[in-house]
């Protein structure tokens, strides 16, 4: 009985050995060219020290949510596949149709998020990345944007044409820049600031 646990012990031993060998090996053999970025404590690419009131794009939240939806689908597919393989043909057709319905419903959701632009990481197609806003760009904008419900459709004729002011409410380039300085989400500038 106890001997049946031997393979597990062996596996734990091998896993530990490989992990230790990799860390120690790269420590001994690897080239060492430290710079400030590399010697920072590692935290998934985020600057480890700074304000806790960090602003980060809401897209991460959206992506996490979508990931869960499609991840659950995969989890659901596994038990289905196991039982599917054990059925006879007539049942297989039934099982297959059931799963098809599920996948079709999922695809409806997929086309919805695709159509809504939830998967466009940058909005450059809808709002081209230029410094000057032209009447053509304004004409392309949707009248109703998420976030201004209740205030009525945007009067596109009143959107200022000229230098780009990405933040709503900023009336001049200077005001926008001071806003940017206070609340900027620009990790590179921040990290450079930190290192200096």
């Amino acid at each position, binding site marked *: 009985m106890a001997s049946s646990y031997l393979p597990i012990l062996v596996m734990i031993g091998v896993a530990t050995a490989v992990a230790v060998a990799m860390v120690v090996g790269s420590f001994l053999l690897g080239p060492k060219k430290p710079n400030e970025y590399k010697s920072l404590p590692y935290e998934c690419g985020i600057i480890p020290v700074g304000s806790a009131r960090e602003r980060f794009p809401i897209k991460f939240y959206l992506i996490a949510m979508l990931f869960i939806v499609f991840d659950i689908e995969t989890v659901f597919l596994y038990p289905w596949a196991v039982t599917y393989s054990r059925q006879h043909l*007539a*049942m297989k057709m*039934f099982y297959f149709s059931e799963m098809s319905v599920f996948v079709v*419903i999922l695809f*409806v*959701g997929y*086309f*919805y*998020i*695709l*159509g*809504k632009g939830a998967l466009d990481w940058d909005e450059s197609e809808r709002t081209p990345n230029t410094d000057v806003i032209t009447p053509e760009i304004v004409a392309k904008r*949707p*009248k*109703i944007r*998420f*976030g*201004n*419900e*209740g*205030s*009525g*459709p945007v009067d596109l004729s009143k959107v200022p044409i000229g230098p780009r002011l990405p933040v709503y409410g900023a009336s001049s380039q200077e005001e926008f820049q001071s806003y940017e300085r206070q609340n900027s989400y620009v990790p590179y500038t921040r990290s450079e600031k930190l290192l200096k």
Partner: protein
Amino acid sequence: MMNTEHSLSAILPMQIVMITGMLVLLLDSCIPAWRNAKILSPGLSLIGVGIAFLSSLHILNNPPVGKLFGGAITADPFSQACSIILLITAALAILIAMTYLENMDLNHGEYYCLVLFSTSGAMIMASALDLIVLFIAVEILSVALYVLAGFARTKVRSEEAALKYFLLGAFAAGFLLYGIALIYGGSGFIGLNPTTNLAVIGKSLSMISQPPAMMIMGLGLLLVGLGFKAGLVPFHMWTPDVYEGAPTSVTAYMAAAAKIGAFAAILRVLNAFIPISGYWLIVIEVIAVLTMFGGNILALTQDNVKRMLAYSSIAHAGYLLVAVAAACNSGSKQSILQQATAHSSAFGAAAFYLLSYSLTTIGAFGVLIWLSKRGRDIQTLNDLKGLARTDPAAAYTMLIFMLSLGGIPPTMGFMGKWFIFNATMQSGQTWLALLLGVASIISIYYYLHVVWVMCFQEPEEGTHSVRAESANGVQTSIYVAVGSTLLFGILPNLVQPLMDAASSLLRP
């Protein structure tokens, strides 16, 4: 598997509603929302609801035989009657939403798809025979409603409503599921393979004298979960805040649809447990009294009409629970025949009352939407001052809805209360019937207070109510609601087929 097609055709109404919801979703992602949400999405939704209505009528007239999905779902006349009431509610809610969303700049097509999804959930609630299916149906209904409550995303009150509803609803879902688990376990003690099927449990309960304690505990927890959805008194705390914060069109839909679904489920669950009603009937009676009086007394002091209607919806849940108590009374004083008569007339009364309540509530909220100016909600009694002079049509429709909610003839609300009163007398619970009468008398004060404000107060300077622009949707909905409130109030026999269908649910 041989009867899969048979089973699928029996749940056609729900499928149609769900598929329409998905089509609306796809339509919305193809065409920018602000362009199509005015006509296309609601139009498609209404067509879907209409087809589902017809197929529900068809199933009502040709009920399928045999077990569907291994007995997990039923398409009996009771479920179809509830579905029909739900589909009428959904159609009216879509019509009033057209105007409201336009006025509040919330014109996103997702609204209609969420309404359709939650309608399908409520329809499954009415048809579920298995408690697990019931749980899933509750979740389909609720998740869509949580999102709808927070649909005005930029308004803090709406966000608050959504979060409150979501957190408390998730908590209640826990109770529901725990109750189902205990019933599942308890069913093992009464000579069954553990099961959550209500038909099976009901049948074997009628053959034993002493039910296992586990099952009674489970039923109690189940009632907590369903009572939360229906807004019964110890579990009603969320109702006023959510109803006030949510966009008015959502409140109207939620007040009607969630309550229909919850009461369909409560009626079906408790019907299965009638053989052991000695253990829980007193609980239902006490909750009914608490709900009627709690809702009505708390409504007395409200000066926000949405909040007042929220408390009034709690009171109406109490009246409905009186019908439930009447249906489930199996006291020893009465003969089997008397009990059966009371049972069927209570079920019919509950169906009639659900229809009258949802028509009237949607109509009353509809009037608020009718008056809402662009970007501004009408919520308080002050906004309604002198309405009879500034906008007589709105004032008099509101008058009829208030009379119906208060239970004054010749409206549907009166007939509904009369039927419930009658069924309660038949079942021998005279004291409950009398308390129902007292509670309705209390409620008349605050309903007529609205009428008094509208008709006998001077309109305030500068608050002249202006009709919503492009109010065709809400106008249609209000006229339909007023028409049927009066018509069915005078000729309740027209609803008789629906009541017969509902009362055909037999005691186990």
